[in-house]
């Protein structure tokens, strides 16, 4: 299990960590998405690595003069096929993500996560403040109304 023997797995791990790091640490949404893609791509490499059979040839049906050649050791084709789907999924995810980033940029004027988060927060706080103010005013007016009602009842 020395490094050269399993270097592909190490590469997967490195790619994965780089991708994750970008998602965690970069504030820019596009960069984050790129990190996410990197992360997904690393999985493709993982699958392809695990499908490899030492000494196997590519999983292509080999014909000798029109007849199948016997006794050929193939690399396992199933993970490769699976990865076709995963590639499609990855592309779709990135596409949806980028479309969302474009919309966010249109709506917020920025595609930096901290800026957008800050804008969101202000929006919430402004709404809270407005609601509190409204509630206070309403309470004041209903309280006077209730007092008026009470005194009215006492007179009656």
């Amino acid at each position, binding site marked *: 299990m020395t490094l050269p023997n399993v270097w592909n797995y190490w590469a997967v791990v490195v790619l994965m960590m780089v991708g994750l790091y970008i*998602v965690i640490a970069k504030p820019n*949404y596009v960069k*984050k998405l790129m990190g*996410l893609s990197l*992360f*997904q791509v690393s*999985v493709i490499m*993982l*699958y392809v690595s*695990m499908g490899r059979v030492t000494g196997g040839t590519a999983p292509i049906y080999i014909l000798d003069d029109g007849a199948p050649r016997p006794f050929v050791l193939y690399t396992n084709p*199933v*993970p490769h096929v*699976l990865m076709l*789907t*995963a590639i499609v*999924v990855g592309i*779709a*995810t990135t596409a*949806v*993500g980028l479309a*969302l*980033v474009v*919309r*966010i940029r249109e*709506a*917020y004027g920025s595609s930096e996560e901290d800026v*957008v*988060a800050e804008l*969101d927060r202000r*929006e919430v706080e402004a*709404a*809270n403040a407005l*609601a509190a103010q*409204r*509630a206070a*005013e*309403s309470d004041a*007016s*209903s309280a006077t*109304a209730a007092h008026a009602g009470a005194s009215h009842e006492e007179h009656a």
Partner: protein
Amino acid sequence: MSEHLPILMVLVPLLSAPLVVFIKHRKASRVIATLACALSACAAWTLALQMSSAVSYPLGGWRPAIGIELRVDFAGAYVAAIVSTIATFAISLGTRGTREDVVGREMFFYAAFLMCVAGLMGMVVTGDAFNVFVFLEISSLSTYTLVAMGKERRALTAALNYLFLGTLGGTFVLIGIGLMYQMTGTLNAAAVSARIREVEHLRTTHVAFAFLAVGLGIKLAVFPLHQWLPGAYSQAPHAVSSFLAGTATKVMYFQLIRVVVSFFGVAYVFDTLHFGDFLLPLSLVAMFAGSLSAIFQPSLRRLLAYSSIGQVGYLTLALSLGTEAGLNAGLLHLGAHAVTKTALFLIAAAFIAQVGDDRLDRLSGLGKRYPLLSLGFVLGGLSLIGVPGTVGFVSKWALLEAVLAGGRPWLAFLILASSMLAVVYVFRVVEVLYFRAPLANAPPLARERADWGSWVPAGLLVLVSVGLGVWSELPSEYVATAAQSLFGGAR
């Protein structure tokens, strides 16, 4: 015909999705979507009610384990029936508010919705590990777009956050499946569980399970990984949040059960890996932190969303017991919470459509103006608390029995203590509805009268949740069979 039911549940919504886009007619798209979901629901119910043992459906006629197999057992049929029914309720009778959210984009909305339904149904019925990933991504990708269709701009950030975390979760699942395949050489559930015995002492198997568990944990919103949920639930269009609240986390929970029970085996997961010890504290924290956060939320949908996080805590707690009784309680609570929470979200949608704002204080004093809606909320809330006579009590009772049978009475206390937090957040809404004068200076209501479409589906679901609470044998017996067959096959 009936042997094709498993594939029909998935195919009908899946094929209707492009149809909706091609037809390009607003009303027709709604009708088609409704019909597709209803058909899917019919198929699921027929299967659930007539099956006597697990149904296997070889896709394309290939022998299972060589080809892809659809496999529906009792639990799967139960979850599929719940998912498709809730989809029908959420889409067909969706409130006017829902329809207004997506004006001009109906075709895409309904297409994405159908894709989402197809993805979730596919996850439930498939017996192939990689298919789980594919359907997971189908449902996730459509969910991101659905969430992004919310009215406010915050829906966009919520959707993008969900996309990051969802993709992360999905990729973790993919890695887990890959490692599992590496160890067993198969993707078929039955074959995996047969072969995993030989490799279960190897580290790669442990890692495979860890990736699967954390990946599904993200999608399931297990406590520290829950942060996508409040945003997604509170910003999505109403039909979507009602649908997601009832189904998305439930299907993921079912997947987690299958990973634990069907793929890796209870003995391995709990006795060797001690997964229960990992899940239990997280569940407990979720139960309290979710409910506590719900108490302080200023908006109705966020309150419900945080309550969902707390409820997921009950689900994972039930699973972490690692017993058949726990599984039984988890499946019961899955159904109970799905029905209840969807009803509550639909009621919230109806209210919000009336006042045009989802802040809690805008509902002040509306209990009198909308007596049926408010009553529905109260009943649904009682079910959320777990008051006797509601389906929430049936599941909580099962959970308590399971916990006590496991010899851990202190857990029972924590469960009961956390349900008192539910009392507080439910009664917070009740207080606002009934015990406050309407805001004197509130902006005028968006509408005067609630249309029937906004309270009929919610009302039906509330009736179901109360009815199943009274005739509790109906769900409990079916679920007991499901848990038994699931668990019995595993040990």
